[in-house]
């Protein structure tokens, strides 16, 4: 019986491990970043409001992340402009308009689409997509916000579809039957009944897609052109918070100010994705309670 008690302890500990890992990640990244907050050369106001990112300048080191934050949000926003209609449309088609055989096939395709590694997406952006963009737009360079957004959209769509479909499936069939009894067409049913009924779940699907897009690293590193400035149009190159860490992390001597500022942007990223995921979770839970 001691053996079993011990085993239960191990199981309990494993259960708590998820909390430990999340805490460990946050605290570790935060601890590495912490000393820079009290450093004289660093100012929190500059960190959030300046677009000047000169981490290795000889004369005047500046750590302004505003351009990086703007880059992250603009490319995410544009990606969502593509991915949300596609993803929700796909989810509606899957759950309301197609037969079970086609549904199974489509779901497998979507699952495979979700499995494509981000570095392959980045490679596609760097090679294929950039040539297409140069050919059909006036952009001087093919690696830019539009390129990154298309790639991110394709990466986020599978998440939005699968969570969105779950949300639509969760709407009780009685709603559909009532609607049909009143003579509504499928489209009217979707538009007037299902969308309002499943709106929380669909919102959660979109939020999880946003989380994916904000956190994506390799694809945006390779596809967005990596230029520090506030974008003026969708054909401008941008740099995101994630790509910036990936490009500069190895360089910064351990314990240097630059190293710590990069960890601080890591904390910022962690916080953003944490809030987005928390939001999605609360929204989903709101659905369950009903």
């Amino acid at each position, binding site marked *: 019986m001691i053996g079993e008690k011990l085993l239960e302890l191990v199981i309990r500990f494993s259960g708590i491990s998820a909390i430990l890992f999340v805490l460990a990640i946050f605290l570790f990244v935060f601890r590495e970043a912490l000393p820079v907050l009290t450093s004289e050369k660093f100012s929190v106001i500059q960190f959030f409001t300046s*677009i000047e990112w000169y981490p290795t300048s000889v004369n005047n080191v500046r750590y302004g992340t505003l351009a990086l934050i703007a880059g992250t949000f603009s490319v995410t926003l544009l990606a969502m402009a593509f991915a949300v209609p596609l993803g929700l449309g796909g989810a509606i088609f899957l759950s309301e308009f197609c037969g079970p055989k086609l549904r199974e096939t489509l779901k497998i395709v979507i699952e495979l689409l979700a499995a494509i590694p981000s570095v392959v997406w980045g490679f596609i952006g760097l090679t294929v997509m950039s040539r297409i963009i140069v050919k059909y737009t006036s952009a001087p*360079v*093919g*690696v830019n916000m539009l390129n990154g957004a298309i790639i991110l959209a394709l990466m986020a769509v599978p998440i939005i579809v699968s969570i969105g479909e779950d949300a639509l499936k969760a709407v009780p069939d009685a709603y559909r039957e009532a609607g049909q009894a009143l003579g509504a067409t499928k489209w009217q049913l979707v538009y007037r009944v299902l969308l309002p009924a499943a709106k929380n779940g669909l919102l959660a699907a979109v939020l999880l897609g946003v989380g994916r897009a904000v956190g994506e690293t390799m694809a945006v*590193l390779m596809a967005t052109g990596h230029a520090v400035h506030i974008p003026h149009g969708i054909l401008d190159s941008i740099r995101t918070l994630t790509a910036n860490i990936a*490009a500069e992390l190895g360089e910064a001597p351990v314990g240097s100010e630059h190293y710590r500022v990069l960890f601080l942007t890591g904390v910022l990223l962690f916080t953003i994705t944490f809030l987005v995921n928390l939001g999605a979770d609360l929204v989903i839970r709101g659905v369950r309670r009903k």
Partner: protein
Amino acid sequence: MNLNQVSRMGVVAALTVCALLYPGCSGSNRDAERAGAATIQNKGSDTMVNVAQAWAEEYRTVNPKVDVEVSGGGSGVGIAALIRGTIDIANASRDIKDEEIQQAKANTGKEPKGFVAGYDALAVYVNRTNPLDEISLEQLAEIFVEDGRITKWSQLGVRIPDVRDDTIVRVSRQSSSGTYEFFREKVLHKKDFELGSRDMNGSKEVVELVGNARTAIGYSGMGYANSGVKMLRIAEKPGQPGVPPTAETTLNKTYPIARSLNLYVLGDPKGAVKDYIDWILSNAGQQIVEASGYVPLSAKKSAR
């Protein structure tokens, strides 16, 4: 529970798992089989990563017992890792800084020692369709420096065919790159780059991007040229004749932005690391430098 304890707990948990895992995976007969074997960790400059890879590949035929692990990341990455004592040889396409020597001494108690393994001319690339052939260092600086005056090709008296907007697309490198620092020191005189340039993560990426963009200009090692780009002749001062980046102009120092490719180790090299560096500096190693598109140490060989 304070901050430290929690993070330590995480590490302890991970450690336990590793301890369970480790013995199973490094079989003892395998260790015996590799007696006299050594692993050399080699990290740093992206400019040098290809030649470093070619050395490692060839050295395998010289001494199969020695494993060389090559990684890129940038000269700064390599030197940072050397300071930390996590690697054996750092590749750098720039010279080590005084503060880095001090840090290395403080951290490891040993002084970094450098070897020049070859030379590289930092070439300035434009698209093949660009009519420009020559540029002065001053013009180059005005294009790339913070608040520089040159932003359009027309200011250089150049008309790019079939292009409506002739704004210069600046292609640069990420700040960990030795190439970036070398360019900043030699061309911008330690002033900062204008933000908004496309900062590529690899030397090849720079050349590829320039090859696909008519209005782009970028800098990268001379070994990376491809059919979509051309290298500009560089004039030290406006009016002076431009010098093309070649092995000859690099060695006789007439090309203004040539640099040495350095290997840094901690203290005097010993054992396998010493053998490896000696081999790199020997004829066999130097031939590989030339084959990779760089300039070997000996002038005679490069004269061809």
